[in-house]
């Protein structure tokens, strides 16, 4: 029995090409049925995400099945030579393990792909499109991904400014439910961070913007309140997270101003995310007790650090994966039959 893989991903094709091959949930059953009709193919799983479309198959006559898969792909996309990579046995097993572990993702170590592969496998299994070898292969892939995630730092930290900010909020407040956020300026990044915080349970969002209409529109969208920019400090009571992104040429949040406000803040911490350039918050604010100020540079530095840590872990992950590939090939040798 041989495991085959044919696919296209963000490494070898831009989105304009990838989108031609994408297989939506509605087409999946039919596509799986067409693949299963290829002579000599005993099982198939289709993984279709925004970054990749991959076909995994189990067969005893790999050349014939690979030709059949190519014909299926070309026919589906209406092209003559689809830019698909192909792997057999050893490489296809290794490829799946790498993909499931997030090593082949655009953002190394991201975990969403594992859920997508699980979904793809469950669908194929439900339609009876898998065989014992593919079942074993995918179960192993899930186990490998779990081990890689728990025993290495491949998922350590966050890799974007927004997610670093949300992570830090978690490290300051723990549970974010019931927390209050104020947006000073309604830039795109601050809006994204605010949305992420809302999805993590933040209770109230107050938006203050020079253009009140923009503040009102954004507040309306994310279920918050709009206030006039000149009165932001009057609405500051009980604010836990302040996100600044105005176009002001000089700091609008100074130590003196904040010191007075923090008197009524009691012992609650204040997390300030300053996304503006020039900065909206004077750096000396970070010296205040219970105030944690992060500007765009410090957030980017932490994101870069996480990427470096993740990249440094790749070799460890590869070694772990190679060990599991050897184990799976051994299992394949001991179970060579064409079991459907």
């Amino acid at each position, binding site marked *: 029995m041989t495991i085959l893989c044919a696919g296209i991903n963000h490494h070898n094709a831009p989105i304009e090409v990838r989108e031609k091959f994408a297989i939506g949930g509605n087409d999946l059953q039919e596509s799986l049925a067409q693949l299963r009709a290829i002579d000599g193919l005993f099982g198939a799983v289709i993984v279709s995400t925004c970054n990749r479309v991959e076909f995994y198959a189990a067969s005893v006559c790999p050349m014939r099945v690979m030709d059949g898969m190519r014909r299926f792909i070309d026919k589906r996309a209406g092209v003559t030579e689809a830019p698909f990579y192909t792997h057999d046995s050893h490489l296809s097993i290794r490829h799946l393990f790498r993909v499931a572990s997030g090593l082949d993702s655009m953002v190394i170590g991201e975990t969403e792909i594992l859920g997508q592969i699980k979904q793809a496998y469950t669908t194929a299994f439900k339609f009876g499109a898998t065989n014992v070898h593919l079942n074993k292969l995918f179960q192993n892939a899930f186990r490998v991904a779990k081990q890689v995630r728990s025993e290495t730092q491949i998922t350590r930290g966050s890799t974007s400014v927004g997610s670093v900010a949300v992570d830090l909020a978690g490290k300051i407040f723990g549970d974010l439910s019931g927390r209050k956020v104020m947006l000073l300026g309604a830039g795109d990044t601050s809006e994204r961070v605010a949305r992420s915080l809302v999805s993590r349970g933040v209770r109230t969002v107050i938006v203050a913007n020079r253009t009140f209409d923009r503040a009102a529109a954004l507040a309306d969208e994310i279920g918050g309140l709009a206030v006039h920019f000149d009165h932001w400090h009057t609405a500051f009571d009980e604010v836990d997270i302040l996100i600044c992104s105005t176009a002001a040429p000089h700091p609008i949040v100074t130590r003196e101003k904040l010191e007075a406000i923090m008197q009524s803040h*009691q012992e609650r911490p204040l997390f300030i995310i300053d996304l503006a350039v020039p900065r909206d918050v004077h750096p000396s604010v970070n010296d205040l007790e219970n105030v944690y100020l992060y500007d765009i540079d410090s957030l980017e530095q932490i994101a870069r*650090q996480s990427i470096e840590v993740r990249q440094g872990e790749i070799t460890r992950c590869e070694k772990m994966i190679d060990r599991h590939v050897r184990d799976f090939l051994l299992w394949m040798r001991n179970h060579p039959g064409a079991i459907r």
Partner: protein
Amino acid sequence: MDAYLLAAATFCLLSSFGHTLFKLGSGRVQPGRLNLVMMIVAFGLLSTDLWMRGEVQRSCPINSLFDVLVFMSWSTILIYFVVGSAYRLSLLGAFTSPLVLGILLFAQITPINRDAHMRLFRDHWIELHAALSIISYGAFALAGVAGLMYLLQNRQLKKRKGGTLLYNLPPITDLGIANARLIWLGLILLTVSFAAGFASGMQVNTLKFWTSAGIWAAYALMVLLRGIHTMAPKRTAILSVGVFIFILVTLPVIQHLSNPK
């Protein structure tokens, strides 16, 4: 036999601490099950040791400085089991094991007094007073550990550099709350212990009285000022570490003064 039990408990805590250091070296601090298992085994061994010595002494085994240090180690782990899981502060164990290890090693290696000073008559009030005092010190020890973790996390957050410790330490708000509640718990236990001491009508040395009263007042002040929001969590954390160090330093003197003449 009890020497072997203590050595085995020390070995468990050493393994737990070594495991944490190894994980720290590999960039991961989050303690696994091994830490917890080692703490449970160490607790079991210490409990057995205390029970055996209690049987021999026919009283709560806190009749020498050696006894007190062992009992305090046991109390610290006990409070950790009660509080550690309640606040999901798993890393508290990683910080608790070196503290308990240090106390146990000090008790076993240094030439401190091991002779139990027995009272002629068994007084339950005095036993309750002594036992609760030491258990309250266990709570204060944990408060000190939570305070230290708070200060480390505060430093990490202020530095704005990220890092392994930042991601593995619990949220700073949770650490502040745990620190404050452990101080509360310790203060309640110490207050009940003092009440038991007064009820016994025992003669108290002036130095012992004022040292103990000073410790009680320091924690009471922390509770009061935190309650009326005039003391920031950072200052409470610093004070809880400082006062616990004071307890450790003055413990031999207090124990010496507590021995029946």
